[in-house]
């Protein structure tokens, strides 16, 4: 589905070029859940942004469904079927939750259908559907709404950039359930999750370890995960219990 070939990304740094990613090559097959992990500053989020078209690579190619998308912008890639969930979701004054979900779905969903996406991320749909996506929402609420919009988008390939960042434990447990459901339903779709949470690594088909801008290891969960346990690439979250929202 997605093929990354010799991808590099440099940024100017005090007159020189700083290498953020160096000659990354990866293949994401159809119907797989891939988790990209690694220490902080290893280039994981940059890679996610390069896939979505938010950043442009210095060198290398990206192919999606066999087509070279290296020079395509964010909109074109989204229309081809690449979805992206932000690590730090964006706030909008005036835009309501239902507006974002409808824009994501690309059609005028009725309220019941739109609410289903909120319920899927553990939010009481009735309370949130007409709320503005503004600073009145907490980080955790915003994150769940972000994931609801990505679910509504139903892309062929969805990239989640550190979905656990900034959310409370309660939401985190729910988030794992969302990914597990996605995992069961993906079939011909694929998911890439940038994360170093052990519980997310546990549901991966394949794990890629990025370190200092290069692929250090790649392989199936059973091959890679044992090496990572206890390192910064596989952090344990305290376990909370999500019992569903009462509304």
């Amino acid at each position, binding site marked *: 589905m997605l093929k990354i070939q010799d991808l590099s990304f440099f940024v100017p740094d005090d007159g020189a070029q700083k290498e953020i990613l160096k000659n990354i090559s990866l293949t994401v097959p159809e119907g797989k859940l891939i988790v990209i992990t690694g220490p902080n500053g290893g280039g994981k989020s940059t890679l996610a942004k390069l896939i*979505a078209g938010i950043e442009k690579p210095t060198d290398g190619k990206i192919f999606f469904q066999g087509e070279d998308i290296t020079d395509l*912008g964010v*909109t074109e890639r*989204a229309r081809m079927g690449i979805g992206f969930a932000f690590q730090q979701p*964006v706030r*909008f004054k005036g835009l309501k939750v239902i507006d974002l979900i409808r824009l994501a779905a690309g059609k005028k969903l009725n309220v019941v259908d739109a609410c289903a996406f909120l319920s899927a991320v553990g939010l009481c749909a009735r309370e949130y559907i007409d709320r503005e996506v503004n600073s009145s929402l907490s980080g955790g609420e915003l994150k769940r709404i972000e994931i609801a919009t990505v679910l509504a*988008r139903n892309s062929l390939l969805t990239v989640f950039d550190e979905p656990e960042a900034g959310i409370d434990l309660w939401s985190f447990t729910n988030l794992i359930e969302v990914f597990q459901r996605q995992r069961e339903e993906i079939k011909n779709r694929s998911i890439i999750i940038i994360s170093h949470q052990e519980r997310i690594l546990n549901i991966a088909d394949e794990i890629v370890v990025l370190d200092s801008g290069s692929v250090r290891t790649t392989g199936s969960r059973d091959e890679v995960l044992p090496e990572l346990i206890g390192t910064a690439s596989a952090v344990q979250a305290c376990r909370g219990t999500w019992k569903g929202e009462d509304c």
Partner: protein
Amino acid sequence: MDLGKVQQMLLKEIADLDAPPKGAYNIRSNSESVARQSTENVNIIPKENASGIDIFIKPDTKGESVHIPVVISESGIKETVYNDFYIGENADVEIVAGCGIDNCGQHDSQHDGVHRFFVGKNARVRYVEKHYGSGRGEGKRILNPVTEVYMEEDSYAEMEMVQIKGVDDTTRTTTADLKAGAKLVVRERLMTHEVQRAFSVYTVNLNGDSSAADIVSRGVARDNSFQKLDLKIVGNAACKGHTECDSIIMDNGKILAVPALEANDVDASLVHEAAIGKIAGEQLIKLMTLGLSESEAEEQIINGFLS
């Protein structure tokens, strides 16, 4: 009601009307009242010595609406109209005003509506005013609304004042005097484009204990347009006041926000917030990841901001 196509379009744009509304109304087209209806509780009477109407709403009137839209389709009309609203004690009503000007001619068209609201004790009123301009003539579309609000004890007024688009020049002047326990909520939305200019000036006097005002003005200045927002709250008692100017600038748009708070009582609590900036890049990118083009994303953000 016999209106031409352009007037009908304007009426739809400013008051969402396809036909005469339910309840009381006065529809003014090209400087004449073309349709008027009073009801048992709402009496609309033309002024004798000036252009305009007096609207008397009986005490205890609940759930009724009054529509008083103005449309102008002839180039060169210049008028000042005085409308006074007397809202009886304990009433709870909605008033829908607004003015649409279509100017395809060489001469400026101008409507200055002077609205005075006398809101009775414990009465509630929701006021909606939309301004809109269209037409490709060189003549300007000018609207200078003056709104004066006099609020008795424990009354409540909510005012939604919107300039949608197409108004070349506007000076909006709003003043309010609030007695004890009265509350005023204003939501203003201003969109200017091309070389339009908009000035919006508020002076709200909180004169009684426990009176409160919440004034929020959101603006978008595109192209080479200019907006100046002057929001002043004067606290003369143990009151609460909040004003907020929140603006987006695009292209070569310019916005000047001039907040002013004056506290003349030690128990007055007054807050002002102001923010001006362009559309955040990350907002555009988020919507683009949902498949919108950059210009579609921009429109969505602005429509949401001004909704």
